[in-house]
């Protein structure tokens, strides 16, 4: 049980390739923090620096108030689960889980207690005498978690633990990790490239890109108040629709004009724009697919387009819509609101009219890509 503090952490490979720059983060005791970002963004490198598997080029990492920069992994009292599980192929499941305890020279009795307890919690008791080769992906993953569990370590590190599993198993294991977290009651640092995992698991999420931290916040914060365009696009699926458009000010009211339409920005967003004294001109407007509404007929505040592809997802439709100038917009429409006829009509080529309320709009500076109102 411990806090982790990273101060100005930097990682440079071969004196030229910068993998992580200026990483600052304080992880509270028992917090679950997720590092998320596209591949090559430095999230794994950061995790491996916390683990002691990579040297820290600059800055300090503290665990429980102790600077661990020069400590070996074994002296940092951490546990780690690897993406490819890294089970010792020549040992049985029991020996795999017991390995770290044997290195510590615990009495066999105690090892037996700990290993069988962990196996029970994870539901792998019946496989204890098998070799990893004879296990399925999900079972291997459980063994890897078991191996980390028995160490009673201060920090629990997980490096993309679910990405080698198929989609169904991944959902199941995600739920189990939430349960595990309740049982272990320790500090977690979790790395993933999957924003769904990040949103569902993390108390806080660290979004990274090209070695730089983009935003740190709770799932709600990063979803509703993304600091920049990258975060806005990265969080949420399908990703946010981005439209280059003009912001007009007429009679003290703000309007956006995507694809020939003219939609007033009122309510809270309008007030915020005014408060920040945002000037009119070119901006980037973002609207999440689920917030786009199908209008019955063309009006001043609708965007006209036609359906390209209609993906039936069950509870909702994903409509890929081509606007008049050829830009693609995705809309998520719950099927509940549509009659059978309407659903049948929304085939390729069918004309549609889109609109969205002003409270779901995001505004970004076209140059800096920063959020204009948060």
């Amino acid at each position, binding site marked *: 049980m411990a806090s982790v503090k990273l101060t100005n952490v930097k990682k440079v490979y071969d004196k030229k390739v910068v993998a992580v720059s200026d990483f600052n983060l304080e992880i509270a005791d028992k917090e679950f923090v997720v590092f998320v970002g596209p591949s090559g963004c430095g999230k794994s490198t950061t995790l491996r620096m916390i683990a002691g598997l990579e040297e820290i080029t600059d800055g300090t990492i503290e665990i429980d108030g102790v600077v661990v920069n020069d400590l070996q*992994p*074994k002296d940092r009292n951490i546990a780690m689960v*690897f993406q490819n599980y*890294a089970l010792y192929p020549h040992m049985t499941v029991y020996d795999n889980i017991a390995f*770290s305890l044997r290195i510590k020279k615990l009495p066999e009795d105690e090892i037996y207690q700990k290993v069988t307890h962990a196996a029970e919690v994870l539901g792998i008791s019946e496989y204890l005498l098998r070799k990893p080769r004879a296990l399925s992906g999900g079972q291997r993953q459980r063994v890897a978690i078991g191996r980390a569990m028995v160490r009673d370590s201060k920090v629990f590190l997980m490096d993309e633990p679910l990405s080698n599993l198929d989609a169904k198993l991944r959902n199941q294991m995600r739920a189990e990790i939430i349960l595990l977290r309740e049982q272990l009651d320790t500090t977690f640092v979790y790395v993933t490239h999957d924003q769904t995992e990040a949103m569902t698991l993390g108390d806080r999420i660290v979004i990274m890109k090209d070695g730089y931290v983009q935003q740190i916040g709770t799932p709600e914060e990063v979803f509703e108040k993304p600091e920049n365009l990258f975060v806005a696009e990265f969080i949420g699926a399908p990703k946010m629709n981005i439209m280059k458009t003009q912001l007009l000010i007429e009679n003290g009211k703000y309007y956006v004009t995507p694809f020939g339409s003219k939609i007033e920005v009122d309510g809270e967003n309008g007030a915020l724009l005014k408060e920040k004294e945002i000037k009119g001109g070119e901006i980037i407007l973002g609207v999440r697919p689920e917030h786009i509404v199908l209008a019955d007929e063309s009006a001043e505040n609708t965007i006209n387009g036609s359906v390209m592809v209609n993906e039936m997802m069950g509870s909702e439709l994903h409509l890929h819509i081509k606007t008049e100038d050829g830009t693609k917009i995705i809309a998520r429409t719950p099927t509940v609101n549509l009659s059978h006829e309407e659903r049948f009509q929304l085939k390729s080529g069918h004309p549609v009219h889109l609109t969205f309320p002003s409270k779901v709009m995001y505004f970004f500076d076209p140059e800096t890509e920063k959020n204009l109102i948060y």
Partner: protein
Amino acid sequence: MKRKNNQLPELPPQAKHHMGIKARNAISNTFIHILLVIITIIWLVPFVCIILQSFRVESTHMVGYVIPKDWGLDNYIALFDTDFPKWYINTLVTAIITALLQTVIVLCMSYTLSRFRFKGRKLLMRFMLILGMFPGMLTMIILYRVLKDIGMTEANAVPGLILVYIASSGMGYYVSKGFFDTIPKSLDEAARIDGATRFQILTKVILPLAKPIVIYTILTAFMAPWGDFVFARYVSMNVSSGMNVAVGLFSWLNKDMIDGRYTMFCAAGVLVALPVALLFIFLQKYYVEGVTGGAVKG
């Protein structure tokens, strides 16, 4: 258009002879089987000849036929009146000690170069690559003189030979490094997090996984001394008690000796080849893993 879609798609060429595939396969397989039989015969003939000649007792010189007219064990028995048993023991001792120590050294070297990223590692590997381009034969002259100065030649050739074989065996790290490279590094990392020292990682995680390459290394190191007649001849310097089998038997085939010793050479050859070949055939699987790994890794 629609009608055409209903027709069968055009067949790929070999499918047209669909009925013929099986028959053609059978013919080509029979042909290959015959070829393999011929190849095997060619490959084994010399060995069969050696064995047959070793039982020939009507004469001891080279003859133009294979099947002995009189059969007997005379050649084998006669070996015991020569220095052959001494040579045999010399070689066996050399081979066993070399195999053990050389394996340790090669494994140390290859494990280190595969797993550690230390300063000068690339330089070291390049340096050894360059050293390896010099013909090793050159160094024999000086090594012989040095061994002679410390009294490890002639009758004492065995320790001298062992020393030289082992000393430069680090150069042969390449194949086993290739094998170590295929063991995922995340295993090392997992073990480091589990609290193991580098030494424990080597003994508890890596070595158990490297069984094939360990056996490969032992096997090749064990076989090499049986065939060395160049440096071994230098070091033993015509002193019979310091010779290994290769040097000793080689001398039986020179012009003065061959007529009297030819069939005995065959008998000795059988005795030398038998254990080595059997060991090799027995451990073939590991040899294949080693040799393939090494070549693929380049």
